[in-house]
């Protein structure tokens, strides 16, 4: 049995989408920082096997901090999908997360977000918007 999705107000939709985007961005930046500090997983797996690679990941505190925020983002997404259609929530969270991650990657991870990456992020954002409408 499928329950009809009652479309909530603008501010409610904005708030739940913002919660997903915020938690997702913090989680992804922390996870990316953790994986950078660990090193190439393929090389670790080649030297220490799969157990060594898993041990390297699960013993990194930064990874667990990221995991907590990604879990918060996941439950926020479940809550959002319970109130909004996937056609709105999916593209909105995906495209906004791209932009916030590009900004966070530049300032927190010190990644080289050059004109090529900004162009790609904007093109993908506009593309996702067109797919959703």
């Amino acid at each position, binding site marked *: 049995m*499928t329950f009809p999705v009652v479309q909530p107000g603008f501010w409610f939709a904005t708030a739940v989408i913002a919660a997903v985007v915020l938690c997702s961005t913090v989680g992804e930046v922390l996870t990316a920082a953790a994986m950078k500090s660990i090193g190439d*997983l393929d090389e670790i797996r080649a030297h220490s096997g799969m157990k060594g690679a898993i041990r390297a990941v699960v013993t990194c505190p930064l990874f667990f901090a990221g995991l907590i925020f990604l879990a918060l983002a996941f*439950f926020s997404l479940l809550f959002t999908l319970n109130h909004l259609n996937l056609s709105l929530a999916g593209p909105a969270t995906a495209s906004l997360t791209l932009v916030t*991650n590009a900004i966070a990657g530049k300032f927190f991870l010190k990644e080289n977000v050059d004109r090529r*990456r900004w162009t790609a992020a*904007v093109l993908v954002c506009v*593309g996702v918007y067109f*797919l959703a409408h």
Partner: protein
Amino acid sequence: MILGLVSVCTPLGDSCLSRGMTRLPPISLAHPSTLIAAVFTPWVALGIAFLICFFASYLTALSWADLTYILPATAMGNVFVELLSRFWLHETISLQRWLGVVLITVGVGFVARGPSLTVKPAAEGPALADKAEPAALKEHAL
């Protein structure tokens, strides 16, 4: 292949989650435990299985490439969904949606042609520069 897995597992997982969550009655913030119970429903559980595959591939990719490289590169998942809808489900795709497909593909092409890892010129430079090479090789191997 790793970036391909990330691209495919995300839309499949999201679709399963959406299907599962719309079959549940509206959940109130006053009863957050119902969100935990939702995890054990079949569609949400299947969605989580896809998202676990996504997460393992995503972590592997993050260990040899920048976050700002991986995220646009894996947006091809949206294009896969459109192509599946058109050629497998025989749905009609509007001109606007085809434009979206083209824009995403061009965006992914843009970022994929650049370096996958930031090479820092500081003391840690040589170590990162060494890593940039296998990352680039992995991309070309796809």
